[in-house]
């Protein structure tokens, strides 16, 4: 862990003062959507909308005092991207990190490249273009110094915020060179020179997050903290049933509430509505409290629509019935029927994971101001470009007439990729031109109008031969698809969803089939941190432990046997349309050597196999997601009342080349706790079409007293040659199966339905 230098605090204060007087020099102007230096076709970044941009003039500016401003175009939601991305630039720029200021980009992909901050993609897709940005800027500074001194550029070198002429010892600071550097041509991609990894001082070493001092003093600006002159506050009553709509409303009582100023109807968009708001009735007031009271006083009649009878328990039973029947084959090799029939031992298990809400600690909010045909929105979104485009579409504006200012996000987890709340604010702002309007979601709004994590029944049948070796594996997954928000419900998991832990199963089993069963979405779905990896990995990794037990083998040894010898597993050979997280399989294959390595590392660190007291046990799980390999060992204890505690967790993560190790550790730690909430506590259920859980009293999350006492994270040092992979999401999927496997080891009781709650009581 890196300790924070205390001068960090005052340094940031100093920079603020300087920035107010310093001019932006290197970035004399933003370029229009000009051609970026050709990007390497080997990265999936190119396939994303607007790809990547590596023009240094877009991302770097240097003030005369030497302050280097680096633009972060990705959204900060706790993953540390506002530190990580600028660190990459600063590395190649040879900048002194203490003189770097981070500037948050507006939503503008033509300018910055893709800004969709999800899919654990930021470092993976922007390591290379950000190195190019830094290297190009550094070479422009060197060229400027060489020109000033009238010497060969080969004799000058940028070193720690200044350019040095080695022959004469002359030095010029970056601030002194900024004006001339800005007029130097941007080097062509093939002329760029990069530091060798051994020379890195930031990449792979990291730095404390740039927003830390503001966070601990309450100065950090989240969406909810935006304050504009004349700001009004709105809360919205939305249809309680997915697909429902407003029938009629009476605002008379609401308008009597002191502070309430206006009541506005928002038209909804019937599903599939993508990110368009659900519609409803907005109460606009002088403060949040008056708006909430005003909403309480509304009299509304809803038309509940087609999902009025939706019920989670019934839906679960339907999904189970579907999982018992053959489904659509999405991967096949060998003959699983014959192999199951001929197996010496056959196991069959059904696993269930309910819907989840993202429940970011900061509920969604957005502040918008509409004036002169243009709309500005300040909000914490993972997708400022989608917020811009969809706001423009809904308001009938051109995208360039909408500006999205991205604040810090008080949690994201995929919820804030869907900018419905930003569009709501813009709609209301247009109703009151010139007046800034904050739309504030209450916690109840958040939990009852989310884009939920899917609900899933996973049924796995496995066959073992007489020696206990796995010979057959049939995995049927039944889950409604999140694509139901984008198109008429396809009724089956998409290639994206099955590619998260179902068809990319790495097990060395001769007869293997994966199927999906039909399930239609009855609530609004969306991606949630780790997405379908959560249910798929839960089922696969629990079954692995069940098979080990059936074979009388150690769970870790059996898992290694299932993973098989070190090799590349290519499901495409079995006819799978493998999306591989949007990246090239040749660059990011499914490598069982890396799976094995994290299993062995986590097990060794956890002292796997060493004795534990009664009613304590260890469980292990491993999963590759977002191109990263994570193994988790949970040491759990169960008391006489069935209460669970977790003395220790060991996580081994192999994410290839990386920037900020302490943030990797932080993400893994946090992923364990989120995984623990999923495993033990939380669940979104539906009754009569309505979400039952309304706040943290019913949608329960892990708290301090229940959290693991220790989490040890071990990062595999692969070297810089192994391409970077995801960090934000891959830590979540292995946690729940590792915990459930540990509980089995502790108690002999096998849990297959989450959340666990009191299943171990009595």
């Amino acid at each position, binding site marked *: 862990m890196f300790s924070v230098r205390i001068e960090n605090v005052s340094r940031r204060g100093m920079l603020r003062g300087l920035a107010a007087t310093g001019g932006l020099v290197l970035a004399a102007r933003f370029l229009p959507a000009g051609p970026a230096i050709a990007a390497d076709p080997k990265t999936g970044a190119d396939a994303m909308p607007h790809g990547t941009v590596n023009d240094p003039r877009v991302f770097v500016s240097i003030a005369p005092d030497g302050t280097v401003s680096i633009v972060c175009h990705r959204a900060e939601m706790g993953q540390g991207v506002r530190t990580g991305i600028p660190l990459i630039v600063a590395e190649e720029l040879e900048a002194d990190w203490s003189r770097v200021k981070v500037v948050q980009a507006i939503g503008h992909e033509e300018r910055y490249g893709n800004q969709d901050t999800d899919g654990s993609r930021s470092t993976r897709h922007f390591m290379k273009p950000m190195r190019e940005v830094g290297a190009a800027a550094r070479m422009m500074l060197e060229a400027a110094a060489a020109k000033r001194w009238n010497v060969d550029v080969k004799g000058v070198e940028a070193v720690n915020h200044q350019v040095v002429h080695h022959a004469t010892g002359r030095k010029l600071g970056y601030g002194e060179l900024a004006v001339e550097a800005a007029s130097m041509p941007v080097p062509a991609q093939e002329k760029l020179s990069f530091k060798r990894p051994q020379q890195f001082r930031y990449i792979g070493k990291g730095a404390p997050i740039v927003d830390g001092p503001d966070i601990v003093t309450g100065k950090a600006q989240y969406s909810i903290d935006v304050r504009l002159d004349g700001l009004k506050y709105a809360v919205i009553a939305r249809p309680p049933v997915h697909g429902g709509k407003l029938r009629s409303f009476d605002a008379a009582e609401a308008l009597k509430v002191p502070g309430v100023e206006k009541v506005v109807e928002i038209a909804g968009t019937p599903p599939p509505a993508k990110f368009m708001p659900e519609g409803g009735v907005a109460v606009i007031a002088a*403060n949040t409290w008056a708006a909430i009271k005003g909403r309480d006083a509304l009299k509304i009649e809803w038309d509940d629509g087609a999902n009025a009878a939706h019920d989670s328990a019934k839906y679960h039973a339907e999904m189970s019935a579907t999982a018992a029947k053959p489904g659509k084959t999405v991967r096949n090799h060998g003959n699983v029927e014959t192999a199951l029939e001929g197996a010496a031992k056959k196991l069959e298990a059904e696993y269930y994971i309910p819907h989840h809400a993202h429940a970011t600690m*900061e509920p969604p909010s957005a502040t918008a101001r509409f004036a002169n045909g243009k709309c500005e929105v300040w909000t914490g979104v993972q997708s400022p470009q989608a917020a811009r485009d969809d706001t423009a579409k809904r308001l009938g504006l051109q995208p360039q007439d909408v500006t999205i200012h991205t604040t810090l996000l008080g949690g994201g987890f995929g919820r804030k990729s869907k900018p419905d709340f930003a569009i709501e604010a813009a709609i209301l702002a247009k109703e009151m031109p010139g007046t800034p309007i904050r739309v504030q979601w209450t*916690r109840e709004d958040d939990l009852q109008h989310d884009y939920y994590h899917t609900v899933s029944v996973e049924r796995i049948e496995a066959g073992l031969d007489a020696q206990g070796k796995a010979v057959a594996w049939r995995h049927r997954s039944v889950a409604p698809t999140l694509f139901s928000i984008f198109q008429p419900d396809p009724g089956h998991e998409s290639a994206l969803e099955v590619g998260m832990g179902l068809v990319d199963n790495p097990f060395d089993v001769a007869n293997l089939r994966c199927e999906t069963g039909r399930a239609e979405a009855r609530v609004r779905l969306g991606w949630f941190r780790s997405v379908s990896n959560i249910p798929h990995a839960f089922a696969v990794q629990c079954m692995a432990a069940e098979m080990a037990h059936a074979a009388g083998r150690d769970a870790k040894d059996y898992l290694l046997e299932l993973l098989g010898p070190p090799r590349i597993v290519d499901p495409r050979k079995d006819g799978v349309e493998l999306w591989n997280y949007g990246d090239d399989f040749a660059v990011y294959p499914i490598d069982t050597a890396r799976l094995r390595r994290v299993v062995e590392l986590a097990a060794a660190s956890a002292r796997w196999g060493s004795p534990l007291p009664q009613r304590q046990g260890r469980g292990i799980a491993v999963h590759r997601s977002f191109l990263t390999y994570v193994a988790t060992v949970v040491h759990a204890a169960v008391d006489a009342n069935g209460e669970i505690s977790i003395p220790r967790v060991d996580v081994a993560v192999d994410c290839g080349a990386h920037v900020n190790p302490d943030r990797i550790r932080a993400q893994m730690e946090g992923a364990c706790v989120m995984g623990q909430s999923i495993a033990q506590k939380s669940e979104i259920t539906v009754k009569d079409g309505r979400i039952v859980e309304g706040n*943290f009293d019913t949608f329960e999350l892990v708290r301090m007293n229940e959290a693991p006492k220790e989490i040890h994270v071990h990062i595999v040092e692969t070297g810089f040659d192994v391409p970077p992979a995801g960090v934000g999401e891959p830590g979540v999927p292995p946690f729940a199966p590792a915990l459930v496997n540990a509980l089995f080891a502790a108690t002999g009781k096998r849990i297959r339905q989450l959340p666990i709650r009191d299943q171990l009581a009595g």
Partner: protein
Amino acid sequence: MVRLKVNGTERSFDGDPAMPLLWYVRDVLGLTGTKYGCGIAQCGSCTVHLDGQAVRSCQTAVGDAEGKSVTTIEGLDPRGEHPLQKAWLAVGVPQCGYCQTGQIMSAAALLKETPKPTDEDIDNAMAGNICRCGTYVRIRAAIKQAAG
């Protein structure tokens, strides 16, 4: 008219005395370091000190603060260098950071009462503060570091 002291400054408020202190400090006074998380005293994001005691400002009416002294995160330490704030940075606690001001306010009340807290003391004092990013292990470490 409600009279109270906020971060040492005398204030008076002639609005609805039932308004939660949370919305008063945020919307009326512009002290946005105190966060809204649940509105029902379940998450602790809105924790402030009322006459030195940690309270959930979402469930404390402005009227209940009549004649009392409120401390928000902005008033915890004049330079933002409370031992907990320093420890939070040294340990690298925050991820998204949203809940952390409430966490620090709860921890500050704990340390005032119990300068050398045990794990159980920390569990008891901090179980009311949810962190969805899951920074609990580091919060525990930072409290211990601040306690010395």
